């Protein structure tokens, strides 16, 4: 195995150009799982951890820019992220356990493209944008547009994630919701994971709602039909029930070793209900 350690973005991009099959390594937490299974034997590895440019969190006027190498632990500690993006903080706090949060990065979480990744529902409802860099130039990709399937992205060979930009939610939402239903309290993969933002108008009707679900389809899903249906409606037992039925049509969970499709359907609907009822747990 060849192990390369570029010191800058330019060097990193050059390295990938020279060795097209090379594999990026950030925190290594997903990487090491594949390594242990012998899937990476003989590959060239490019360690990104010396690229200082990708390690910062910058506040802008309309949003925040998070370097791809920022760890889940750093995100949880950052005052601005805590204030503006509590759903991201909650998600990061439930990734693996402390050791994983100390090493795992947000860029690695996105690039790994697991259908069960826990930051995705939050990034989806905050409508994040992923910034990439490659020898061909830079791109900005809307968060939902980056995923091609389970463990697959639309990133091109040699294209790296450099930052994630998240706009501030303005006006501030009336309610924010995050919940991970995993296999246990820590070191757990999600069976379903949800995030929601809700803006109510003065008349208590829904001005806007955003709801996203992970682990119940090949990629992260926004519940667009339910969101559209709820716009302008009051939250009653009937409208909530209707929204729950609409969610059912937007997801495609499967039976696997971790859970069943029937359970994931039921819980996904219940999560939407819990979100809309703003019920404290």
């Amino acid at each position: 195995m060849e192990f390369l350690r570029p010191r800058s973005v330019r060097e990193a991009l050059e390295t990938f150009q020279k060795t097209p099959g090379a594999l990026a390594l950030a925190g290594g937490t997903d990487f090491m799982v594949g390594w242990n299974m012998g899937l990476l034997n003989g590959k060239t590895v490019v360690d990104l951890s010396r690229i200082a440019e990708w390690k910062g969190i910058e506040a802008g006027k309309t949003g925040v820019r998070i370097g791809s190498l920022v760890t889940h632990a750093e995100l949880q500690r950052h005052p601005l992220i805590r204030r503006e993006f509590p759903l991201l903080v909650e998600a990061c706090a439930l990734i693996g356990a402390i050791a994983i949060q100390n090493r795992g990065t947000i860029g690695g979480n996105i690039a790994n493209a697991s259908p069960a990744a826990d930051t995705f529902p939050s990034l989806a409802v905050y409508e994040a944008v992923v910034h990439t860099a490659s020898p061909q130039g830079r791109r900005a990709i809307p968060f939902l547009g980056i995923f091609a399937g389970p463990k697959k992205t639309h990133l091109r060979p040699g294209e790296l994630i450099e930052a994630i930009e998240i706009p501030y939610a303005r006006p501030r939402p009336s309610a924010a919701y995050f919940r991970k239903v995993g296999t246990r309290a820590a070191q757990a993969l999600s069976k379903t994971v949800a995030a929601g933002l809700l803006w109510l108008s003065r008349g208590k009707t829904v001005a806007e709602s955003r709801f996203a679900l992970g682990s119940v389809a090949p990629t992260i899903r926004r519940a667009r039909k339910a969101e559209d249906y709820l716009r302008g409606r009051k939250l009653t037992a009937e409208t909530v029930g209707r929204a729950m039925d609409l969610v059912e049509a937007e997801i495609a969970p499967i039976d696997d070793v971790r859970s069943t499709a029937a359970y994931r359907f039921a819980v996904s609907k219940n999560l939407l209900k819990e979100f809309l009822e703003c019920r404290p747990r």
Partner: protein
Amino acid sequence: MPAVGTSARRYEGPEKLSGRALYLDDHDIPGCLFGVTLRSEIPRGRIKNVVFDRAFPWSECVVATAEDIPTNIVALIEDDQPLLADGIVRHALEPIALIAHESREKAYEALRFVRVEYEELPPVLTIEDSLSRREILYGSDNVFKRYLVRRGDVEKGLRESPVVVEGEYRVPHQEQAYIENNAMAAWWKDGALTVMGSLQCPYYVHKAMKKLFGLSDGQVRVIQATTGGGFGGKEEYPNMIGGHAAALARKAGRPVKIVYDRSEDMAATTKRHPAIVRHRTGLSRDGRLIAQDIQVLMDGGAYVTLSPVVLSRGTIHAPGPYECPNVRVDASVLATNTPPNGAFRGFGAPQTLFAAELHWEKIAAATGIDSLSLRRKNAFREGSVTATGQVLKESVGAREVLDLAVGKSGYLKKRSSYKRWNRDPKKPCWKGIGLALVHHGGGFTGSGEVYLASRAAVSIGRDGLVRVLAASTEIGQGTNTLFSQIVADALGLPRDLVAIENPDTAKVPDSGPTVASRTCMVVGGLLRRAADDLRSALLEAAGGSIPQSRSKLRQAAVRLCAGEKERRFEASYEPPAGVHWDDKSYSGDAYAVYSYAAVAADIEVDKTSFEVRVRKITTAQDIGRAINPLLAAGQVTGGTAQAVGWALYENVVMKNGRMTNPQLTNYIIPTALDTPPMDVILVEKPFSGGPFGAKGVGELPMDVPAPAIAAAVHQATGILIPELPLIPETLHRYHDQTQRQR
């Protein structure tokens, strides 16, 4: 100051904490090859051909197959299991061939260059399948072993009972999930074999090696390496993997080490036996037991291994700790084409006790009497007679542990306040509190201890060093510490003057296997007797008092050894007076004594996700004298956590006879965050036959939480779910069914 009764420091604690303790894989054995195992991909079939792809440089490897094993039998209870499959495979992952290479990576790579061609046969994968006798795998009826326990007249009792309650309960596999995977090494010198590894029972391995390779006692030496947990998972399986290492080493003429990775360990090695238990219970209107008719069916897997003894413990514990005049337990363990199930903490008892205890919920519903009152009415007391006709003469803490768990947990108050809480549909969760009460026999079942005829010794060297000599292994549970406490007090010496010899068949006598909650109670008892003999001799040599310093002890030791290097004092097992067992009628004193435990499990069920969260386990456990209270409480806490795992999380997903989730990512054991807070109360009802009054504690804690949790889920959701694990998917399925029926 006496050591017994104090929470003396762990004997091997500093070694382990500082990283100096050497586990098998830490041993750098010169010239050692690394061995890997080629396993069956199908559950049942004939092997037509094993094809070694020429693309791999086979000359770098040593390959062993069935032909290389002089007697291809893994000796245990029956002789039905081969060390390597010979022409036929009877379960998925059955070992077919072995490959050794200098490099671990290359050895694994070699596996990818072997292809096995099979003629598949129809597999039998479940208990029902086996019972149907569609395919016969063993004997004439697929039954590995059957036991029948009878007391009184069950049919008459049931006929005369005003209330009869029936129930069927199912419990699944469970993986031991010790920290260290199975690992063994072997080497030969001048026709003699040494095997070293992670194991619980050195003399089981010793016996198996003798048979495999036709060796005499003196030609086999088995050494225990520091062992990272066992829970029964290293009771019988080291015979297999030790045999594999030895076969490869024999052919290679070099040492061979085999260390499983987690996936292989989980998928291929033994698990707890799944079981179906059916109860038909007759009672008086006021809730007194009149008859218990119990059927037990266990899934043994493809070979007999330890199934008969697992079944026997399950059978004897099946009625629970209650007196009933008419009992019948009809128990069988059946053959299936799945990896053999084996020893796991509790050894058959958690399975049958789950059914016995959860059944009280059904009886409570049928009689209108709450399960606590029912238990109080029927629980064992001194003088009670068990289903096997055993009169319980002493140390019966059943009622005491029940009352303590009930009192300390606030059971009664919670029971009624949760009833009110659950009526409010606005609440985000349902709440429940449930009870269970169990007994657990210490030591081998029936005449097991007599057949074992264990021996243990205490020696003193000319250098004044006192040594404990036993084959009982430290597997994290505290054997070394307990032995040093018992022997120190028996001798009247400070504990730091007592050393523990490492279990090594060249140095220690056969004190039997480290299983069955027997180490402290039975082997500790032998050591106490051996130490008493040494004490008398020492007193004589030292002129009437036991020396308290190293130098004085040395002087006495020189006199005592009289020119020899050391003096040894050995004791061998004698059944306690008045203990009798009859194998033919399966009746009598099944165990010298029982330990008792009660749990109150306080839980919540989330209405959104159907997840069960245990808020608190309150448990009282009568274990006789606690030789080391901290270690005893540790056994209770650890066993409880393991039982919470079995009850709520651990789900072995089998597909075509093969575990499909053999990783700790997908086979969910509780983490620290999933392990509930616990209140542990030790009740010390002394047992006259145990050292300083000790009984067993190793397995007991595993028996009791699961049915208490299931009973709590019953109160919370109103649904009696008669199966484990109570994963959210299962709760949701039952909840959905109930909603539909309404």
